[in-house]
C-alpha cells in the first residue's frame, strides 16, 4: 500500500537543540493516527516539516511520494497550533479566501459547521475569543476535502462540549482515502477516534501500534499506556 506520509532518516536541528533524531516513519492511507508525546517531543516539528514551513537538516519527508511543495499543499489540510488568520477579516472573508485558493474547499460544509457551533460568519476575527478563533480555524481546515489532514493540538483551546462535536466532525468528514494525523497530549479525549498511535519522545519514535493491538495485547487504554511509557 502506498504511504501518504513518509520520513526517511529525518533529522532536524534547532539552534542548541536536536528536535528530531533520525526519524523513520511510514503512514499508510485511510487511517486516523494519533501523534502522541509529551511537550517538546517533536510532534509539531514533524508536522511543520510536512508542510514545508521548516526545512529538514538532513533526511527526507515525503507526502504522497513528493517533497513538500505546491502539489503537496493542494492535498494537505493543516491546522497549526497557533492562529494564523488575518484578524481584520470576517469569517465570510476567510471562507472566500479558502475557496479561492483551495480547489477542494467545500463552502457548504463550512457554513454548516459554523451554524452548528454557533459562530456568526459576519463577525470579525479580531473580536473573537481565542477558543472561537480556534473553532473557525478547525472548521476551515476540516471543510477541505483533503487527502491528508495534519491537526496540531486541534482541541487544546476549546471547551469539552465543543471537543466532542469537533471529534465527531473529524470522523464524519473523513473519507475512505483520507488520512488524519492528530497531534495532542489530551489522549483520553481523542483515544476513541484513533486507529493507530505513534508515540514520540525527545525526537525519536518510541512506539507505533494500532489501538486494537494495545487494547488486546497490553490490555490497557492508550491513555494508560502513555502514562506508563512517559512516566516522569
Amino acid at each position, binding site marked *: 500500500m502506498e504511504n501518504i506520509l513518509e520520513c526517511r532518516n529525518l533529522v532536524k536541528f534547532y*539552534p542548541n537543540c536536536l528536535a528530531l533524531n533520525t526519524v523513520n516513519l511510514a503512514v499508510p492511507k485511510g487511517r486516523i493516527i494519533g501523534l502522541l508525546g509529551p511537550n517538546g517531543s517533536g510532534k509539531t516539528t514533524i508536522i511543520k516539516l510536512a508542510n514545508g*514551513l521548516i*526545512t529538514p537538516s538532513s533526511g527526507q519527508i515525503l507526502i504522497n511520494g513528493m517533497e513538500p511543495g505546491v502539489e503537496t499543499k493542494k492535498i494537505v489540510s493543516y491546522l497549526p497550533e497557533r492562529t*494564523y488568520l488575518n484578524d481584520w477579516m470576517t469569517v465570510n472573508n476567510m471562507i472566500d479566501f479558502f475557496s479561492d485558493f*483551495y480547489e477542494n474547499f467545500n463552502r457548504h460544509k463550512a457554513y454548516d459547521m459554523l451554524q452548528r457551533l454557533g459562530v456568526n460568519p459576519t463577525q470579525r476575527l479580531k473580536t473573537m475569543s481565542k477558543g472561537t478563533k480556534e473553532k473557525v480555524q478547525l472548521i476551515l481546515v476540516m471543510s477541505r476535502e483533503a487527502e491528508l489532514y495534519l491537526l496540531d493540538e486541534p482541541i487544546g483551546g476549546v471547551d469539552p462540549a465543543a471537543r466532542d462535536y469537533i471529534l465527531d466532525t473529524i470522523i464524519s468528514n473523513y473519507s475512505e482515502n483520507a488520512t488524519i494525523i492528530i497531534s495532542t497530549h489530551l489522549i483520553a479525549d481523542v483515544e476513541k477516534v484513533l486507529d493507530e498511535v505513534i508515540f514520540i519522545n525527545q525526537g525519536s519514535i518510541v512506539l507505533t501500534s494500532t489501538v486494537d493491538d494495545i487494547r488486546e495485547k497490553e490490555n490497557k487504554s492508550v491513555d494508560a499506556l502513555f502514562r506508563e511509557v512517559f512516566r516522569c
Partner: protein
Amino acid sequence: MLGKLLKYEFKATGRTFLPMYALLIAFALLNKIFITINADYLRIPQVIAMVGFVVIIAGISVMTLIVTIQRFNKNLLTDEGYLSFTLPVKTHTHIDCKMIVSAVWCLASFIMSAISIFILALDQSTLYKTRRFFEDIGSTLNQLGPGAYLIILECILFVAVALLASITNIYAAITVGNLSSKHKLLAGLGAYFGFGMVQQIVVSILMTVFFSGFDNYMEYLTTAGAWEQMRAVQLGLLVMLLYTAVFGAIFYFLTEWLLRKKLNLE
C-alpha cells in the same frame, strides 16, 4: 494564482492607504478653501490645516515604506506565514505579489501627493505655467529628435527598475535577518547596511578600473557636439539601468532561494 494573491494583498493594504489618500485630498481642499477666502479671522485654523497637510504628506511617504516592510515580514514570516506558505502557491509568486503591490502603492502615493499639491497651487497662472512647461518639453524633444525620446524611455525604465530593486533589497534584508534566531530586527538592519556597503565597494572597483577612460571621455565630451553628448547620456543611463537591474535581480533571487530552501518559521 498571482491574480488571487494580488486581490487579497490589495485588499489588505488598501485598508491603510485609501483612507489616508482621502484624508490627504480632504486636507488639500480645506487648505485651498482657506487660501481662497484668505481672511484674517481664519489665520489660526489656516495654519493648523496647513501643518496637518504637511504631516499627512510626510506620513504617507513613511507609511509606504513601513507597509512594504511590514506586509512582507508579517504576512510571510510571522504567524500569518503559516497560512501563506501552506497555500498551493510557488514561493516566487508570493514575492512577485508583494513587490508589485508595494510598487503600485509607492507610485499611487507619489501621484496622490502630486495631485494634492496641484490642488493647492491651482489657479489661472499655474494652469498656464503647467501647460507651457509641457509644451516646452515637447518642443525641446522635437528639436533633439528620436535620441531624446530614448533618453526619456531610459529614465522611465530606470525609475521603475530602481523602485523594484529597492523593494527587493528590503525583502532580501528582512529574509536574511530572519535567519537569525534571536535578533531578527538587528540582523535585518545589519544585512541592509551590509548590502549597501557591498554595492559601494562594487561601484568603487568599477570606477577604479574604468576611471582613466571615464575621465578622458568626460574631457572629450565638453568639446564634443550635441549628438555625441546625447549618445553619452544614453550610454550613461543604460549603464545605471543595467547596474540597478543586476543588483535588483540578485536581491530577488537571494530572497526566493532563502524562502524556498532555508525557511524556518518559528
